[in-house]
């Protein structure tokens, strides 16, 4: 079913209402101007956690609401509409999915309730260069004293500055490019030998590069099975990527609506600029692109909830489509606002900058089109 359930409609409405009242774009501006290296505001996140949005995909048994991915998508879209900064994707989707799907009982017990109530923040540490390349994992985890020692680095870790723990994809066998030999580890941020350094990106959120200097973990830090983590990682990435697409949809939708509102009020050459036929056409093209994009994102999230066989195809479709539409919508937002959209005082810059960062995160369109092509056999 492609439509929202009543429960999801309620969730959307309450998210929309809360954001409007408590976290409009101005709140993000204030956070940015404050230069907070974590990239979000603690009070805002606390309020979000208080509403239970940090526990939407976490099983009830571990303190979550188990509403599912379509539901977290609904929330993320509303947050995206107002560029609300909170570590939901990295923590409440990324890390939470890894543990819920592959964690041991102890791992789940120790971390999921804290992620669900926002008292802990998790993050996914996957990529090791400037492009999303989960097939190229090289970070070495060598056996040591019944456990492992990790040496190497991770880059551009989303919410990496705020994270209390990381889900780290490392290599216990084989070499970069191999399908086997990947293992996921649960690693507290305070582990000895692990250091992080901020990566300042244009969206003013909190990214970190991690350096692992012979970081030792026990065998109980393995999530899933050692050496067979690739399939689990793919599932986790599919879920996280779909969540990103949902936020992108919110950004794109709001970029469009803000622009249309502007065109309806702005006068040039004695006419409303919205009355110029050529601009109407531009708006109509963008509208069409949005209408074509939305069902792909909904379908991907729904497929995850239904554990459908074509989740990966749908996620790549959704992410490529969301990338393109948010890129398009935010460029049009800048262009159609004229000079004002170019100023830092206007919100348009926030949308295009967040859009660009999310576009690269977890695979740009080229990555997902290529992945889709291979999945369908093209």
């Amino acid at each position, binding site marked *: 079913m492609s439509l929202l359930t009543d429960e999801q409609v309620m969730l959307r409405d309450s998210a929309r209402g809360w954001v409007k009242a408590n976290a409009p774009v101005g709140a993000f501006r204030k956070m940015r101007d404050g230069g907070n290296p974590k990239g979000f505001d603690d009070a805002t996140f606390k309020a979000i956690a208080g509403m239970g949005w940090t526990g939407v995909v976490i099983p009830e048994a571990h303190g979550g609401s188990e509403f599912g991915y379509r539901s977290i998508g609904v929330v993320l879209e509303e947050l995206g509409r107002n560029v609300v900064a909170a570590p939901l994707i990295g923590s409440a989707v990324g890390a939470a999915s890894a543990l819920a799907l592959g964690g041991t009982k102890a791992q789940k017990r120790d971390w999921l309730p804290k992620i669900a109530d926002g008292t802990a923040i998790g993050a996914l540490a996957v990529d090791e260069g400037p492009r999303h390349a989960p097939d190229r994992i090289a970070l070495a985890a060598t056996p040591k004293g019944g456990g492992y020692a990790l040496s190497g680095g991770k880059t551009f870790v989303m919410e990496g500055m705020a994270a209390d723990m990381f889900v780290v994809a490392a290599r216990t066998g084989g070499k970069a490019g191999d399908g086997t030999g990947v293992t996921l580890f649960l690693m507290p941020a305070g582990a000895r030998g692990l250091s992080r350094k901020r990566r300042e990106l244009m969206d003013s959120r909190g990214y970190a590069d991690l350096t692992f200097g012979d970081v030792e973990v026990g065998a109980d830090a393995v999530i899933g099975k050692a050496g067979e983590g690739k399939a689990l990682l793919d599932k986790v990435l599919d879920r996280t990527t779909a969540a990103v697409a949902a936020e992108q949809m919110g950004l794109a939708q709001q970029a469009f609506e803000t622009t249309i509102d502007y065109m309806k009020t702005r006068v040039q050459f004695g006419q409303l600029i919205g009355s110029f036929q050529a601009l109407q056409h531009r708006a109509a093209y963008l509208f069409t692109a949005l*209408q074509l994009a939305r069902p792909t994102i909904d379908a991907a999230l729904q497929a995850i909830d239904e554990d459908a066989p074509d989740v990966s195809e749908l996620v790549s479709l959704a992410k490529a489509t969301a990338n393109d539409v948010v890129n398009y919508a935010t460029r049009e937002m800048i262009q159609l606002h004229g000079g004002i959209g170019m100023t830092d005082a206007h919100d348009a810059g926030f949308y295009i900058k967040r859009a660009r960062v999310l576009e690269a995160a977890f695979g740009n369109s080229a990555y997902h089109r290529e992945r889709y092509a291979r999945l369908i056999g*093209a």
Partner: protein
Amino acid sequence: MDSLTEVDDTRRLAAFRDEALAWIEANFPESLKTKLEEYFQNMPRYPDGPDWALWKQRVRDKGWGTPGWPKEFGGGGLSTPEARIVLQAFTDCGAFNPMTGMGTSMLGPTLLEHGNAEQKKQHLTRVSRGEVRWCQGYSEPGAGSDLAGLQTKAEDKGDHYLVNGQKIWTSGSRFADWCFCLVRTDPRSKHDGISFLLIDMKTPGVEVRPIRTISGESPFSEVFFTDVKVPKENLVGKLNKGWTIAKRLLQFERNATNTNRRQLAGDTRPLNEIARAYVGVDDQGRIADPDLRQRIVRHMMEFRSLRLMQQRMLDETKAGQGPSEFTSVAKNARARIQQEREELLIEIFGQQGLGWGAAGDQFKQTEIDTTRAFFSNKAMTIFSGTT
């Protein structure tokens, strides 16, 4: 509607859908299952043969060619959701509705709303039984989709109207028995001087000249009216108020184009499959032409988005939600994506996609069909008014 009633309704409709599917499965002749192409290619004519006739008769007796029409006019007497289920079920079973055409999709609904008792009686049953073919006389040379400039005139001659003028782009008129026409009955005003008239194509003075298109086919004609006498009882609705009916009918037409038009002709396999066959694959199993491959993938992804969007529209309809914002963009998006598919298909075929004339040992039937469809579908965005 409270939620219990809603659940009830949903259950009832689901049961009805099963029933419809079962009936079609049981009644659609086995031999026709591989012959859909023949049906669609022949439209608006109906193929000859015993199984073809049998299927038409069964649907006729059931009233399911026009499932939402009242039973007294040969319809199925079903509710709107039920009727939609029946029509969808034809497709879902790999069958088809043998009673298609402008009579069922456009004239019928119009007469049900605006026709008088006598007109309904005279025309509807014959349409629902598939005994008569209708065509539409709207467009005129030089007027395009702008009906205000309509010039074909009908003069009041006491017991009849005398019609003179010319229509163009009338599809199926070569095989039509009747034509529903817009004519000018008052030259002084624009929209108010137009009336809606039913014209028997066998009336003296009606001449049909097929228009050959760039696809080499003649799906349209020009229709000339020279001193054609039309009985006054053939006026539908009020004199000079045909514009209102015309607008309503255009809505039916839009719906009809959405559901009935067959847009895939020629090679209907997924593009990646066709490309692998025609272009080959590289050592990694990818379509060998990397530039073409990227465009195929982009297209296939957009095509899937479109299908997901259409599914959403369907779900909305089923859920009783009114036509959403999707509806307004679906048609143009579909036309564009469909044309892109054809462009890619021609490119995949290479010079095999440029053949003309009949299929044979040089060009396969699917190749020739694709090429023709490529040209005839260029008309789609034109005639759906997208310029």
